[in-house]
């Protein structure tokens, strides 16, 4: 496994057993290049963290890989099959399921119905067979049993008959993860699973993410809390301004002062001193003045 973390092209080296490989993926919004990834790989059976500051293009990259957005150029494969131009629902059927940064629970459906929706290959989801309960009730029962097991694992079983819209923010994250598992994906892609979750629940979420790997799934997740990343990930990819700037095992990447300074901020996780606060304030004011001047001149 490569351990080099220098932001150069030789770090983005081939891995032994990749489940997902992407090359030359770019996405432009007008003049802004939101994503420009030369090479990206996810190793099978590992937890890969995708980190970077806000606006680095992590979620856009996520959307591109899962078919929710179309890139301007690039190729990527999942288990050797090209996913270019494949619509999101087919991507999911191939075994690559994502969650969303802003959780998307189906509010006015019960928790258990949210779960049942995730099951694949349902006979009752076809128009004519759906009219005859006998054709799908057996499968429905199997799916319900599996859903209840998963809900129990995520400690949501008591909520099975509540509307999903009545869940708290953290419970919604759990439900979304559990629902994704109903698809039985090989690769599960979590977009900021810890965002807006209280610290106690974060620990349990981390446990759940680890358990996904332990049952043989591959996990890719987006996060910006470095401590979380350090705890659970096997491999860390750092993105900034649309590009991958470094990758490696968490300790190596995080020890890289350049990465920390440039992409996570020099003061990450450290309380600001009085002097630095003043400095930041002064810089901000100067910037505002410059803007105001520019506006007057224009």
């Amino acid at each position, binding site marked *: 496994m490569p351990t080099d973390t220098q932001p150069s092209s030789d770090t983005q080296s081939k891995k032994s057993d990749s489940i997902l490989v992407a090359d030359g993926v770019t996405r432009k919004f007008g003049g802004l290049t939101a994503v420009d990834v030369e090479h990206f790989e996810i190793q099978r059976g590992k937890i890969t963290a995708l980190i970077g500051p806000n606006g680095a293009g992590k979620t856009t990259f996520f959307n591109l890989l899962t078919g929710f957005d179309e890139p301007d150029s690039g190729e990527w494969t999942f288990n050797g099959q090209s996913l270019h131009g494949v619509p999101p629902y087919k991507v999911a059927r191939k075994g690559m399921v994502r969650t969303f940064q802003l959780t*998307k*629970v189906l509010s006015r459906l019960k928790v258990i119905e949210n779960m049942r*929706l995730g099951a694949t290959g349902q006979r009752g*989801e076809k128009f004519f067979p759906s009219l005859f309960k006998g054709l799908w009730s057996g499968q429905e029962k199997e799916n319900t049993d599996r859903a209840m097991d998963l809900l129990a694992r995520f400690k949501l079983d008591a909520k099975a008959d509540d509307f999903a819209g009545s869940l708290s923010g953290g419970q919604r994250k759990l439900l979304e993860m559990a629902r994704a598992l109903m698809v039985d994906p090989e690769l599960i892609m979590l977009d900021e699973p810890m965002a807006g979750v209280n610290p106690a629940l974060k620990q349990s979420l981390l446990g759940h993410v680890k358990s996904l790997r332990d049952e043989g799934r591959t996990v890719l997740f987006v996060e910006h809390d470095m401590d979380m990343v350090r705890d659970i990930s096997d491999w860390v990819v750092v993105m900034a301004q649309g590009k991958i700037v470094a990758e490696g095992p968490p300790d190596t990447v995080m020890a890289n002062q350049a990465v920390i300074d440039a992409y996570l901020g020099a003061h990450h996780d450290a309380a600001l001193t009085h002097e630095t606060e003043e400095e930041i304030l002064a810089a901000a004011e100067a910037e505002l003045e410059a803007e105001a001047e520019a506006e007057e001149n224009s």
Partner: protein
Amino acid sequence: MEWSGVLSGAIEQGIGPSAIIYCLAAIGLNIHFGYTGLLNFGQAAFMMVGGYALGSLIQTWGWPLFPSLVVGLLMAVVLALVLGVPTLRLRADYLAIATIAAAEAIRQVLGSAALNDEFGGQDGRYGFVDGMRSLNFVPSGGVHFLGLDFRSYDFFIMIVGWTLALLLCGFVYLLMRSPWGRVLKSIREDEDAVRSLGKNVYSYKMQALVLGGVIGALAGIMSGLATSNVAPSDFATDTTFFTYTVLLIGGAARVFGPVAGALIFWFFISGLDLFFDKMTSGANPTIPASIMTDDQASLMRLIFLGLILMLIMIYRPQGIFGDRRELAIDAH
């Protein structure tokens, strides 16, 4: 007219052919809007293609009843595909724009003088229900009970119409308890989430649009059969909005919502009409002409209907059959 006539008149209208037409249209719209969240503002267009296919095939081209009826339903399928293919991949509001525009466009075309020979211009098609009348088994003297009077053919239409409405309710019930219905409801809540779970959202939205459109065409066909006439004025935009009103009174995404909504809507709209007519008519009206003339009275029903709608929306926004807890949940 006696005061009891106001009540019986309102009940006759409340369960009469007009209520059936709006009930059927609302059952279709319920599949679009209530279950799948599709903003179809052109339900009148689906009714129109159904009704006009029936009327013009029989009157202009001399077809028999049943083949015309089948073509009417197929036309709704075609319309749904034409509207759905370009818009269902886009954001929800595009369907709303496309449907409301298409409904008006089709109405203008069918009512145009250039197509007078085929579709009869503003008069539309009429007198094409001989085939239906020949099936009438209700005694020719009509039906009278509990102070209500129905003409023979009207009562026949009511039997056919309400039977059809109840069958469709059963059909909707079967669909919506199934995993297929679950996918539709999930699309209403958040279609990206449904996509991320491997469902072909576009296909389901199209199925819903076609199914609800075909039921809308049935409503248009019933309208033609009940009144023996299809004309452009029957399918104006207010037809769609009355259908929404019926649906919301009953409660969206409820199997019997359209039935209850249609009964209540037509009971009130005709009851209010008869009431104000009674109050202002005669040599010595209860409401003197200095306050309100009988011409003005005919508009009162819409004012009061608006008021009743507002009260329902404020105090029972979920409709008659809705679940308030469900409504209390923020959609996102």
